[in-house]
């Protein structure tokens, strides 16, 4: 039994730890809040219907960003559509078909960790060499999307594997005890039960892809025209922001507007993803 003094001391310690946590959370929120506040302050008044639907003029110093938003969504869609099934398949194979602790699993986990920490510029160089030159896709939206897919596959596969491993063992036992085959368990229990987590992982991967500049500099190109096919080059929002901020004199204001748009786009995709994942449960 604790005496009263010990209890009081523990309560004081709890309060100090709690205060420290809140202080850290407050600092982080403050830092992020300041970034978003500054961007919103400088960029919000530039965002209008004309800006969203217009085409860039004078190298982006004026006009809108519609083709750039389209390019961004196309590249992101290619990356997610390619990366999602491949990374899901890798994670499912490792968790459901390989025994934990075997050499193959250890090799997989190490490889995914290493690949996930490779600098994105290296993926950009790989994409430019392999997809653009070797496969002859040139500098295009498709090359950009495929490069991003290769970049986010290890991140998503590693995260999916963690998600599947954390699935309560009762679901697995329950399904198999009812006579379910492995495929039925995977597609009717495991994936539906993990929908929210799967979407969260995809959003994390998509967020990484959406913010990516280095990998796309060499692969998707700089063109700010409306694309006519997947093999057309196209500038995405992050590259547009980079270009306005670094290469275009007087482009800073429009860069902040594009940054705000990028944040809004990601919030929109995340909210939609999480809303539909919650809906799909029952």
């Amino acid at each position, binding site marked *: 039994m604790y005496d009263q003094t010990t209890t009081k001391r523990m309560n004081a310690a709890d309060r100090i730890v709690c205060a420290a946590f809140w202080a850290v959370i407050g600092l982080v929120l403050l830092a992020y809040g300041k970034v978003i506040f500054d961007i919103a302050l400088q960029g919000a008044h530039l965002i209008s219907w004309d800006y969203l639907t217009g085409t860039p003029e004078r190298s982006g110093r004026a006009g809108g960003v519609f083709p750039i938003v389209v390019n961004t969504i196309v590249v992101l869609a290619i990356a997610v559509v390619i990366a999602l099934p491949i990374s899901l398949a890798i994670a499912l194979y490792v968790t459901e078909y390989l025994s934990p602790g075997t050499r193959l699993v250890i090799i997989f986990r190490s490889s995914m960790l290493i690949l996930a920490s490779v600098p994105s510029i290296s993926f950009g160089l790989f994409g430019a060499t392999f997809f653009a030159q070797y496969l002859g896709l040139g500098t295009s939206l498709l090359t950009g999307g495929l490069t991003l897919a290769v970049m986010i596959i290890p991140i998503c596969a590693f995260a999916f594997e963690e998600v599947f491993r954390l699935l309560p063992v009762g679901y697995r036992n329950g399904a198999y005890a009812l006579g379910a085959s492995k495929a*039925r368990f995977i597609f009717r229990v495991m994936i539906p039960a993990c929908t929210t987590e799967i979407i969260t992982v995809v959003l994390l991967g998509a967020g990484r892809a959406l913010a990516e500049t280095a990998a796309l500099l060499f692969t998707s190109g700089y063109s700010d025209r409306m694309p006519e096919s997947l093999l057309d080059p196209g500038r995405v929002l992050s590259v547009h922001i980079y270009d306005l901020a670094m290469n275009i004199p007087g482009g800073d204001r429009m860069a902040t507007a594009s940054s705000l748009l990028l944040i809004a786009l990601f919030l929109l995709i995340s909210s939609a993803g999480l809303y539909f994942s919650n809906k799909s449960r029952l």
Partner: protein
Amino acid sequence: MTIPQPLDRLSAQGIHAVPPYPVLSAHGVSVRLGERHIVRDVDLSLNPNEILAVIGPSGCGKSTFIATLNRMIEHTLPAAEVEGQIKLNGTQILPAMNDATHLRNKIGMVFQRPNPFPFSVQRNMEFALKANGDHDRSGYADKIEEALRLVNLWDRLDGRLNDPATCLSGGEQQRLCIARALLSDPDVILFDEPCSALDPISCTAIEELILRLKERCSVLIVTHNLAQARRIADRCAVFWLREGSGEVIECGTMQQIVDTPKEQITRAYIRGEFC
């Protein structure tokens, strides 16, 4: 040597469990993990419409043994090697026949902790029906209602089948899991300490349900609760750990095990002298 035959072929030939054949029988079943025997040389049989309780201290291989009966051990302990012979309705299922999924339709299983899937009640029940190869959706409503009535959940869930199964109480979740297992009309249901995570009231409801199930199928229940075994079981098998391996030291009617146990260890265990 008996050639293993698929259960459905035997059923089609009209071969069912008829006395004196037990519904389920295990002969010389051992479970090995590397060099170590977890369960050694177990002989047990389960008669039609009988409740057999398996009791014994923790870690003596009771759960491991019952997981061999429907080959769930392939998932719960994949590295284990199972030896011996197991027959269901006279059909050899160990050495393994190919179709473990069909076997599990015939030998249902309910676990320690209720494990409904995190979907609606309806989806939980439909999963069981589809896993049993039943794809005729027009019959689902009646089958689901019948199973839920059997476990006394229909009055509670009528009109609320789209509610999340995980929102039910622990006892209700366990009864839902039993209803799910009943949808395949199993010959045997294995219960692995089904009340260990439940309160006494829910536990009583489960016990009453198991007693009712006896009219439909045979039941093998692993329990640490001797009083529970006395309340519901017809026969009892006592597992004990000998030289690191679980063995059946005694098997008999519940009354004989409680009143006149043959083994000294059983007597001491029943009297709680090891506590």
